[in-house]
């Protein structure tokens, strides 16, 4: 897919120049939609899974005749997992490519950086999987099709306190990440309400490779589990270092763990750990099984939740365009706001008055290197 030649190396600059020459102009028989995501960087699988899901939805809609008699085209931009880059590429998608709607991002910090641009320009944006509450508070053009962190944090707090019967839990959060900080706050609050004690609350920064100091401090407090609401790369490294410090308790986390790379990085050290997610591939419902099968045929991998949410976000957006009967951004926004009982692979989606989806969450466990369904928790 991405052919890299070392030759290309010397030529970042020239490549940039060349791309900017081939200006994408939306033609009259096309509906242009912009997508931005982290196709590279420490959360690369987030962007790639989402892109795969969107691609599947796109092909399906175009094979059945497109929308409003026009072909749908999605222009994809890589933000390298950097908030400032997300803002830049979204500005470019709106002003230069003149897209009528936007899909993205996964990480809340990147969506939060880009959303004000979309809001100001009046272009509807649908985030497939940003769970931080602040995302849709940016304005009435910003939507999401996943649950939010106050719910996800509650799910894990309930799971820890009630299903696992834990009383002492430590927290290790990414202090430079909106998602991680928000989720940790909600977890701490709910776990305490449920009668538990937070024995330690430590921080790290995305990109760190050494966590032994934090883990040593945590180890001294003898927690029964460690809640790590970060992204999969750091989680994998944290799991390994915890093991090498002799910490045997399970790790708990959120949907930021969801990646095919999680187990590759963390290996055996992650065995027995739990995290909350948007759906489970083990769900027997025919819609999910069809999606999983199609995805495996096409990409040779099991779709993670982000692929499913990418697929659903695209389908919900297409549905809104169809209902709006027009490719006008404001009309699309109005139709999106009316989304009700949309049956997707990640559950039935209804957007509430705050433009958030209300959906159940599942808890998965790492078992023999695979993600195993444990339970579903409803809102």
């Amino acid at each position, binding site marked *: 897919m991405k052919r890299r030649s*070392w030759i290309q190396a010397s030529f970042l600059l020239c490549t940039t120049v060349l791309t900017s020459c081939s200006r994408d102009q939306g033609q009259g028989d096309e509906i242009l939609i912009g997508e931005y995501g982290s196709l590279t960087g420490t959360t690369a699988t987030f962007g790639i899974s989402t892109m795969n899901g969107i691609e599947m939805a796109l092909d399906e809609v175009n094979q059945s005749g497109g929308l409003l008699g026009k072909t749908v085209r999605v222009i994809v931009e890589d933000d390298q997992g950097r908030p400032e880059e997300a803002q830049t590429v979204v500005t470019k998608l709106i002003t230069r490519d003149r897209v009528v709607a936007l899909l993205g991002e996964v990480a809340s910090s990147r969506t939060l950086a880009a959303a004000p641009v979309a809001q100001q320009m009046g272009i509807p944006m649908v985030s497939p999987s940003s769970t931080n509450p602040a995302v849709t508070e940016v304005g009435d053009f910003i939507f999401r099709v996943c649950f939010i962190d106050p719910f996800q944090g509650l799910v894990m707090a309930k799971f820890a306190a009630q299903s696992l019967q834990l009383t002492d839990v430590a927290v290790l959060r990414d202090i430079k990440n909106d998602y991680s900080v928000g989720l940790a706050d909600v977890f701490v609050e709910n776990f305490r309400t449920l009668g538990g004690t937070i024995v330690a609350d430590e921080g790290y920064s995305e990109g760190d*490779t050494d966590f032994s*100091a*934090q883990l040593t401090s945590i180890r001294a407090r003898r927690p029964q589990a460690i809640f790590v609401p970060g992204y999969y790369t750091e989680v994998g490294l944290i799991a390994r270092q915890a093991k090498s410090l002799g910490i045997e308790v399970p790790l708990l986390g959120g949907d930021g763990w969801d990646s095919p790379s999680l187990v590759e990085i963390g290996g055996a050290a992650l065995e027995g750990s739990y995290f909350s997610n948007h759906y489970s591939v083990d769900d027997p419902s025919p819609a999910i099984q069809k999606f999983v099968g199609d995805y495996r045929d096409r990409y040779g991998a099991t779709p993670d939740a982000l692929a499913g949410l990418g697929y659903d976000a695209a389908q919900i957006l297409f549905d809104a365009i169809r209902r709006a009967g027009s490719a006008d951004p404001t009309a699309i926004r109005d139709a999106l706001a009316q989304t009700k009982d949309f049956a997707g692979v990640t559950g039935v989606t209804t957007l509430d008055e705050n433009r958030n989806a209300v959906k159940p969450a599942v808890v998965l466990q790492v078992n023999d290197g695979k993600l195993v369904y444990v339970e579903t928790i409803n809102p």
Partner: protein
Amino acid sequence: METFLQQLVNGISQGSAYALIALGYTMVYGVLKLINFAHSDVYMFGAFMGFYIANSSWFQATMGTSVLSGVVVLLGAMVLASMLGILIERFAYRPGRSPSPGTLAFWFGILGAGFGYLLGKTPGAVAAGVLAGIVVGVILEKWGVRPRAQSSSLKILIIAIGVSFFLENSGQQVFGADPKFFPQIIPTKVLNVAGLSLDSQKLTVLGVAIVLMVLLNVIVNYTKTGRAMRAVSFNLDAARLMGINTDRIIAFTFGLGSALAGAGGILVSLMYPKIDPLMGILPGLKAFVAAVLGGIGNITGAMFGGLIIGLAEVMAVGYGQSTYRDAIAFVILVLILLIKPTGIMGKGMVEKV
């Protein structure tokens, strides 16, 4: 107490990572008075070379998880890294020192490769581009267009920064910008001693760092080449008058320093298995601070500087705020420089007479 001792262990293993990078930094500086900014990128390069060696089908077929395979990867990466270091020296730094034929042909060749790729995107087009670039370079040199050799330390410093960016961006293109995960090529065992968890891998890293430090000290202080290196470092012209081929000694210095960077790349990746093309920047900066802290040019000082920075960082995170992790190295630097400007083990340089 147990926690404190464990933090001490953590700090030493983090510190040995910085020390490994700092060794090469300080040696190259000691000989050439050049802050080799590309050093941290050679470190990155070494890690990736190790990654590719360990994932090659030949390696997978013949080696397993053993100390031997660790040695094979380590030596392989060191050799490749030193080759890169010598290449950098030959085509980027040396032209700043003396007129070096072939320099223009080299860089025009790279430029041509890029144009070839943009125009054709086939190996043939790239090869044609390289060829055209080399021809242009050779013709320009025949006309007398040569890099002007006026050695100014500012110029060389800027070249070093440029080389560093070039390697980072090339790395992103060639290796891919997303992180890769270094395979576990040496067996890991967690030893429990009196409540302390000692990771055998981290002990190995510390051990190898110490061995390399001793080896480096021996080379620099007790061999003929080392004597020549010190002569070159003190006075280039006088060294030439001794019959020393200074270009060769400088290339050797770069090769040795880069081999150390490569070794650092492998050893650090064994401890912290996430590798990406920008992985060298921050550790490189901190290793540089470690080298200055220890007294730049002083090999033993670099080792201690690295350990101090590692310990300080871990203590800052363990007993303070992880927010200050990256700042602590620089705070220490400022303090030390205020108290002892030459660094902990640095001697006031004897003025050249």
